[in-house]
C-alpha cells in the first residue's frame, strides 16, 4: 500500500511568549494524513491554528514537537533536506496579489522555483507547461505581464503555476479562494480538482468555508484551538456532524438540517487554552448539563486524546449521549 503523501505526526507548534502574553500553543497535538491523490479540507476559524499547521506541513515552520513526514520519510530540517522537500510539497497562499513579487513578470514568477533548484535546462518549456496546466492559455500571452496587470483569478493561477513548475506531489493551499470574487472561486476550485484528475496531485486545503469542503474535498478535519475535533469523510461530517463545534458551524449555514446554534463565549485564544475539553466554555451541550451532572467534571477536567490520522473520529466526552442542547442565545460576544 502506498505510503501517505503527507503526514503530521503528533505535531505541536508553540510560539514563544510575547510581551504580556504567555506562550501560544497554536498547534497542540495533531495527527493528520493526506493520502495519495486525496483532497483533504482543514476547516476552522481564525485563531484555531490551521494556518500554522499548513506552514509546518510545508516546512516553513519548525514544529516544537512531533514530525512531518512525506511518503513515509520524516522531514529533516537541514537546508538540503528542506530543498528536496520543496520539490515535493508546495504552498499556495490566500492573497494572490501579495504572493507575487511586483517586480517580477509572470515568466520569472513561475520560473523562480525551478531556478532555485537549478533546473535550468528546458526552463522555457517547463514554465509554459505549468502555465497551461494552471489554465492560463495560451501561455505566450501571459509570460510578459506583471502581477498588477492581471485579475485576482489570473494571479492565483500564476501562483499555482509557480507551484506546479516544480512537479510537486502535494499542494497545501491556505484559503486559496477567500480573496477572490465569488464567480471566480469555482474556476480555481475546479482547477484543483482537475489537477488531481490529470496529475494525481494530493491537496490539503485550509479554509474557514465548509462549502469549499463540500465542493472539492474527500475528507474533512475540523480544527479548534490547536486540535482536530472531528474528522472523517465529507458526507459524514457535514451531513451528520457529531462534535458540538461542527454542529454549530453547520447550523449557521443556509439549507442545513441542524437547528441553529449561536455559540457563546470568547473567540479562541491559543495563549489561554481551557482545561479539560478545550471547547467546553462555549459548548452548547456542556451548557445544557445540569449543575449537578457529574459529566461536567469530565468536560472541565479531563483532556481528550489526540485523534488518529486517518480513522474518522470525534474528540468529545459527550458524543452520542442524550442531552437537550440549548439554542440560540443572545448572550454572545
Amino acid at each position: 500500500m502506498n505510503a501517505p503523501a503527507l503526514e503530521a505526526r503528533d505535531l505541536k507548534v508553540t510560539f514563544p511568549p510575547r510581551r504580556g502574553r504567555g506562550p501560544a500553543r497554536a498547534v497542540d497535538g495533531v495527527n493528520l494524513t493526506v493520502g495519495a491523490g486525496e483532497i483533504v479540507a482543514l476547516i476552522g476559524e481564525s485563531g484555531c491554528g490551521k494556518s500554522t499547521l499548513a506552514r509546518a506541513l510545508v516546512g516553513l515552520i519548525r514544529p516544537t514537537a512531533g514530525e512531518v513526514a512525506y511518503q513515509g520519510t520524516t522531514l529533516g530540517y537541514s537546508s538540503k533536506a528542506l530543498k528536496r522537500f520543496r520539490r515535493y510539497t508546495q504552498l499556495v497562499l490566500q492573497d494572490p496579489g501579495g504572493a507575487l513579487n511586483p517586480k517580477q513578470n509572470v515568466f520569472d514568477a513561475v520560473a523562480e522555483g525551478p531556478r532555485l533548484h537549478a533546473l535550468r535546462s528546458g526552463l522555457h518549456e517547463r514554465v509554459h507547461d505549468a502555465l497551461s496546466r494552471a489554465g492560463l492559455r495560451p501561455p505566450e500571452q501571459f509570460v510578459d505581464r506583471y502581477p498588477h496587470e492581471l485579475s485576482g483569478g489570473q494571479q492565483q493561477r500564476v501562483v499555482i503555476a509557480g507551484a506546479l513548475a516544480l512537479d510537486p506531489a502535494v499542494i497545501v493551499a491556505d484559503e486559496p479562494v477567500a480573496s477572490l470574487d465569488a464567480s471566480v472561486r469555482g474556476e480555481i476550485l475546479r482547477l484543483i480538482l482537475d489537477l488531481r484528475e490529470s496529475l494525481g496531485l494530493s491537496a490539503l486545503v485550509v479554509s474557514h468555508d465548509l462549502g469549499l469542503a463540500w465542493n472539492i474535498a474527500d475528507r474533512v478535519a475540523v480544527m479548534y484551538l490547536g486540535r482536530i475535533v472531528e474528522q472523517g469523510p465529507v458526507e459524514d461530517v457535514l451531513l451528520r456532524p457529531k462534535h458540538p463545534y461542527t454542529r454549530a458551524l453547520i447550523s449557521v449555514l443556509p439549507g442545513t438540517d441542524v437547528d441553529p446554534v449561536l455559540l457563546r463565549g470568547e473567540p479562541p485564544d491559543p495563549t489561554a487554552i481551557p482545561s479539560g475539553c478545550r471547547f467546553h466554555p462555549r459548548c452548547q451541550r456542556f451548557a445544557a448539563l445540569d449543575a449537578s451532572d457529574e459529566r461536567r467534571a469530565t468536560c472541565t477536567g479531563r483532556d481528550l486524546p489526540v485523534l488518529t490520522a486517518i480513522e474518522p473520529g470525534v474528540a468529545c466526552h459527550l458524543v452520542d449521549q442524550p442531552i437537550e442542547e440549548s439554542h440560540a442565545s443572545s448572550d454572545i460576544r
Partner: protein
Amino acid sequence: MSLLEVRDLSVTYGADVRAVRGVSFSLDAGQTLGVAGESGSGKSTVALSLLRLLPSSARTSGEVRLGDEDVLTMGWGRLRTVRWAEASIVFQGAMSALNPVRTIGEQIREPILLHEKVGIRAARERSAELLDSVGVPARRVGAYPHELSGGQRQRVMIAMALACRPDLIIADEPTTALDVIVQAQILSLLGDLVRESNISLIMISHDLSVLAETCDRLAVMYAGRIVEIGTSRQMIAEPRHPYTRALSGAFPTIGDPASRLAPSGLPGDPPDPRVIAAGCPFEPRCPEAFAECSTHPVELWPAGERRESACLKVLPEFAKASA
C-alpha cells in the same frame, strides 16, 4: 411615498471609469434590500453615493430622494443633518473605519453630540445603551478598537450607525472579514434591529446566501447596472438571470449533491468599468448567451411578480433562444 427612491443614478470616476450606469430602485420604511455583486459591479459606489460620500473626482447624475429631498443636490448644511440622523452607514472593514487612538465610547458619542442637542452625560448614557443593544457589554465603553475582536468591532460600528436613530442603515459588506459564527451573530443582530425599530436596511455583499437570509428583496448588480431585482426567496429559488444563477451557485448548499465535487464558477473576470460594451455586458461570460446578446441593448424588463431582469430571455421573442 417611499423612504428612499433612487432614479437613474450614474457615477463616473475621473474621465472614463463608469462605476454605476443608471441604477434605479426604491425602498419603503422597514423594508430590507440586499445588493449583491462582485468587484467592479458598482455596489459600494451606490452605497456611498446615497450619502454623497464619494471622492471629489466622482461625477454623479440622477436622483437620490430621501423622503422628498434629493441628496445629490441638497445644500451642505442640510446634507450634514441628513448624514447619520436620517441615514447612516456601517462601513466595510471595521478595523480601518474606527479611529485607533480613541475609545469606542468617544466614537459612539461623537455623532450624538454633533446631531442632538444633549450634554455629555446624556450622550454617555445613550452610548452605553447602544453598546448593550448590540451585545457588547457596556463596561467596555472605554476600550480601544484594537482591544476588541473583529466581531465586537463590527458591533461597535453598528452601534455607531444607530446612534442618531436613523430611518435607514446602509451596511457595506458587514460580515465579509468575519468568521462564520460571528457572521451569523451579526446578521441575526441586524435582523433583530430591523424588526424591532422598523429601520430600513440596505445590505451589500458578494455572498448571495447571506443576503437571502436577512433581506426581503434582492438586487443583483453587474458592470454598474442592476441585472435582476425581486424578492429574495423567489430569486434564489428561481433566478431569471444567468448571473444570479452563477452567483447563487458559487457558494454551494451543503447537502446538495449537484455541487458535491463540482464547483461552479464563471470563466473570465468581472468587466473593466472603462469599457462600454454593446449589447449585454454579461455576454462574454454567460453560459446561456446567444447571437443577439452581443448586439441587442438590455434593460430591466418585467420577469414575474415584482420582479425584473435584464436578460433577453425574459422577452417573449427570445424565450426559447439558445447559443
